């Protein structure tokens, strides 16, 4: 299964993950 998030955020929003990285619930994705 897959989850797609689409959202509006300021230009300077940054992702703190990389493609292929394993993540857990609650882990920081971006700020």
């Amino acid at each position: 299964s897959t989850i797609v998030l689409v959202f509006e955020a300021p230009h300077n929003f940054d992702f703190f993950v990389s493609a292929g990285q394993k993540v857990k619930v609650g882990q920081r994705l971006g700020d």
Partner: protein
Amino acid sequence: LVEAWQNTPTKWYPIPIAAGALLLVVLQYRKKSTAREVVVDDDGNEVIRLKGPWHVHVIGALPLRNMSRVWGYLNSLELPVWFRPIGFRIYASVFGCNLEEIDPQDLTQYASLGEFFYRKLKDGARPVADAVLVSPADGRVLHFGVIKDGRIEQVKGSTYSLDALLGLARPGTPAVTAVEFPDQKMDEVNHRHFADINGIEYSLHELLGTPTPSSSGTSTPTAEAPHTHTDGAAQTGTAAKKHGERVDASVPRDQTLPETVAQDVSMASEVGLRPTAARRDSFTSVRTKPGNDTFFIVIYLAPGDYHRFHSPAAWVVERRRHFVGDLFSVSPWMAKRLENLFVLNERVALLGRWKYGFFSMVPVGATNVGSIKINFDQALRTNVGSRREHPVGTFTEAVYSAASPILNGQPLVKGEEMGGFCLG
């Protein structure tokens, strides 16, 4: 160099025309394969089709939805108690499940594989990070980035349309202006009028529960009234209807409005939003405010992963659009080969807003997990009925305004469990 240039003899050779023609064919083929072939219907909207190599078409010919339902049925069969620990340990070792963090830890308590698949985790097993956006699920990040020209990059070189994914800008749905969020402080809200979305204005005593008709003639979301949960059918969740008909699928909190309002106002401050009311027909088109971008991230949940999903941010879910679709596998292998995978598959688009503007979360089903559960949505049933009744791109819509009339949707805090994927 000068001497070589001047003294080297020039010889001419005939190139076979066939070689030239072959070269042209190769160039043309490469151009075609990299160009996006867009088929549009008479309204000019892209028609999403099954596109990809031949084996994708073979898979597409399989009765995936029926296979998924059979798989779901088999996994709902109760297992003998003595076999459960053995079976689930084998499953856990094959798919890499961590049995230390599940709740309950006693494997005999899971009557079927379906129950084990939808297992809970111990409290505290997933701490929530201090960031505006956290992961909604255990899984692997497939792709992320900024949305350009309304298209999301599925994998390198393959994109799908944001409109198709979220059911935006569909024919017959009125256009809507963007959602405005001036960043007022909450205490300011408490003691004076506030202008809100699309010119609907609320006075304080309306906020506190004594609505009076406002100048624009609408004191409560009128488009909402015929579909509110007050009609029994909607409340019992039997009212998921066709495109264009809306149902209030949320579970209302208690009916004493002022208390609800008090809760909503405190919840509003918690999710960082201003109490407001949007016109029902919002979300047919999303315009990003100046200074903002629209971002996306795709997370793939592997079979062994914890399959409940949580709120990735503090936001308010206003509505959901259930797209009946196929149930292709959504593994990275398939994502690389099947274009438009995420707009072909069965999915539930949860649309709402957070403090920066538009926010949406789209759980996408797959062959083994065709059932998507949303905890606050009794009306939702996925993977039922035949796909033929629901052409690609159509959806049934429900709104959640009853959950929080003031926030006009279901407020969620970051890390709160929202639902999950079930087998079949």
